[in-house]
């Protein structure tokens, strides 16, 4: 019952927000729903109902982690939107709020679905819900961005559906496409069709995740979408897409196909790391830089899935950390954009002096995103690298370390250039109202805490998630 509420309430509210004529309380409605959603998610943690997947909807460990990321990032984004919409001077923002709520509904569906077709429907719905949001500014560049986004995402989603059908065809016993039945009867799945299903699902959901070479829509889309939308996409959407892939890996692991899925996962993961590192070096735009960072982290996640073992635990932890920190840093960059009117890094200097909190958020975000201690991403990346060494994949670990170093250099150059230095003449300190900094600070703070201490209930959940993915704890 709670699950259905979590899915349907945002959708219903979105419809109400679309239809209602009043503009004033729409943003507050958004915030209210976000808060209710967080409360619902928290209660799911409380009830400790982490049973094995049964039926069409349910809460399992990995789904709960994704739901938490979605919920928290959405709360931060809705708080941010209170001020953002004023700054952007948009009348009523009806499309903005309704589409955001539709997205929340769809993302919740993805997180809670244990039927592969429902996962697919949710992913398709997220694609459609975000399209109008990407097109927010309605100019040439955002038109180009939304077109590329739509075409590539739609083709990816179509191929994912194709893979879903292959999965249904591969099944011999049990209810079709139910995750629990698939895992339980994994030994009887037809291997040829299962592998074909995996390939199509990898390509399909990989496109939505933004794995190279299927990532070409990401820089354009993240660059042109408004910052809160980009934060949501980088934090929540990628996690949902990863969940689609992870569910497939669960089935593959149960069917003893772990050896088959390694090469494609490694190939896409390494390609993502290489491409993102390469394109980050000469980057001039802050949001595009962060888009490539998103590609990089999706690559790390794919590699972690391929490694298996303790890598699966690292993947789950990294999912959580990455989602939260992406939300934080994109909103911080959003503040920079509000400050100087553009996301071109050359247009802004000395943010630390003009908006101290934003500056701190940027520096902290830089270190967090590149995997430096004491932030949570260090722990998760360390776990993954350790798993790689343990599995005898030393070359993989070394390649990853090298590329992560290059990424650090590329990002640091740009962000530190924006944060430090003296501001231009006439550019004085800027107010940093609560809605614009509270969300990012909380998200960043959570990532910092996760780097120092992981509560037992979270450890337990992550371990269960890893177990489902065919791995174990480090």
């Amino acid at each position, binding site marked *: 019952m709670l699950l259905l509420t979590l899915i349907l309430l945002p959708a219903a509210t979105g419809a109400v927000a679309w239809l209602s004529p009043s503009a004033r309380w729409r943003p507050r409605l958004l915030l209210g729903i976000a808060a209710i959603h967080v409360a619902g998610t928290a209660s799911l943690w409380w009830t400790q109902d982490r049973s094995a997947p049964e039926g069409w909807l349910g809460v399992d460990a990995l789904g709960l982690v994704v739901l938490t990321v979605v919920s928290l990032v959405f709360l931060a984004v809705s708080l941010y939107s209170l001020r953002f919409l004023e700054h952007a001077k948009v009348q009523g923002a009806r499309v903005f709020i309704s589409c955001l709520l539709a997205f929340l509904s769809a993302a919740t569906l993805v997180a809670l679905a244990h039927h592969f077709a429902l996962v697919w429907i949710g992913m*398709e719905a997220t694609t459609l819900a975000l399209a109008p949001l990407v097109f927010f500014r309605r100019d040439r560049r955002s038109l*180009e961005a939304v077109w590329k986004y*739509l075409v590539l995402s739609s083709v990816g989603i*179509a191929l994912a559906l194709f893979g879903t*059908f292959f999965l249904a*065809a591969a099944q011999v016993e049990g209810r079709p496409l139910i995750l629990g039945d698939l895992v339980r009867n994994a030994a009887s799945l037809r291997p*040829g069709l299962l592998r074909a299903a995996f390939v199509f699902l990898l390509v399909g959901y990989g496109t939505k995740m933004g794995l190279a070479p299927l990532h070409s829509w990401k820089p354009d889309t993240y660059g*042109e979408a408004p910052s809160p939308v980009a934060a949501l996409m980088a934090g929540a959407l990628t996690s949902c897409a990863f969940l689609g892939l992870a569910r497939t890996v669960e089935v593959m692991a149960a069917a003893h196909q772990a050896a088959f899925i390694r090469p494609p996962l490694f190939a896409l993961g390494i390609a993502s790391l290489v491409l993102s590192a390469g394109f980050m070096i000469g980057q001039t735009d802050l949001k595009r830089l962060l888009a490539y960072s998103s590609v990089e982290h999706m690559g790390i996640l794919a590699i972690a899935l391929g490694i298996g073992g303790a890598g699966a635990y690292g993947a789950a932890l990294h999912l959580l950390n990455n989602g939260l920190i992406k939300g934080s840093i994109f909103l911080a960059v959003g503040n920079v954009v509000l400050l100087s009117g553009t996301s071109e890094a050359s247009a802004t200097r000395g943010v630390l002096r003009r908006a101290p909190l934003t500056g701190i958020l940027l520096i902290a975000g830089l270190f967090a995103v590149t995997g430096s201690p004491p932030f949570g991403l260090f722990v998760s990346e360390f776990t993954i690298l350790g798993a790689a060494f343990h599995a005898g994949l030393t070359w993989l670990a070394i390649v990853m370390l090298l590329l992560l170093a290059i990424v650090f250099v590329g990002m640091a150059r740009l962000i530190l250039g924006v944060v430090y230095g003296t501001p231009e003449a006439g550019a004085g300190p800027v107010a940093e109202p609560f809605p614009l900094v509270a969300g990012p600070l909380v998200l960043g703070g959570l990532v910092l805490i996760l780097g120092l201490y992981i509560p037992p209930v979270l450890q337990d959940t992550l371990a269960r998630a890893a177990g489902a993915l065919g791995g174990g704890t480090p």
Partner: protein
Amino acid sequence: MQPSHDVLLLLVVLTNFWVLGTTRLSSMIRAAAMQGLLLAALPIALYPHASLHIVGLAIGTLLVKAIVLPHFLTRAIREAAVRREIEPLIGFTASLILGAAAVALAFAIAPRLELPGTPSGMLIPVALSTVIIGLLVLTTRNKALTQVVGYLILENGIYVFGLSQAERVPFLVEVGVLLDVFAGVFIMGIVVFHINREFDSLDSARLTELRD
């Protein structure tokens, strides 16, 4: 006489060739509408013990693929005042030959896929070839609207494949699929309209401002 579903699938392949070979956008949309009509009749031809599931699916497909979407796309080209597709990346003749090769390939590999007993031996090859041809149109054509038609054909191919599993994957899902296709094309059509307004053309090769 051949079973009716085989005739329908045959006609689906012919509409694919029609889309590959024509230069007129309105002709392409008409072909897609015809394909939608054939696909609407297909579930009933395949599973004649018309349960509510099958009849609902047929009606839903008819409404979405054969009536609403083509009507919407026709309005889009009327707004854009575009009539013809220009020579695509690989040429019309080469497209037709590749399409025929795709059909041959699909018929050749379909028996090897050892898919569980489907009602017709032609379902899987036609589905595969339609998917390949949809991807072909999507990737090699210049006008944004043709790419949308290519996407429609891709989805039609996946739909035909899904029909072979229709007995097992229940109703809710098929409704979801149809709804998502509808919304996807709808939104793409709106974007096409905007592309025309903003760039004064539907040539997606012009969309090159964003790059690294």
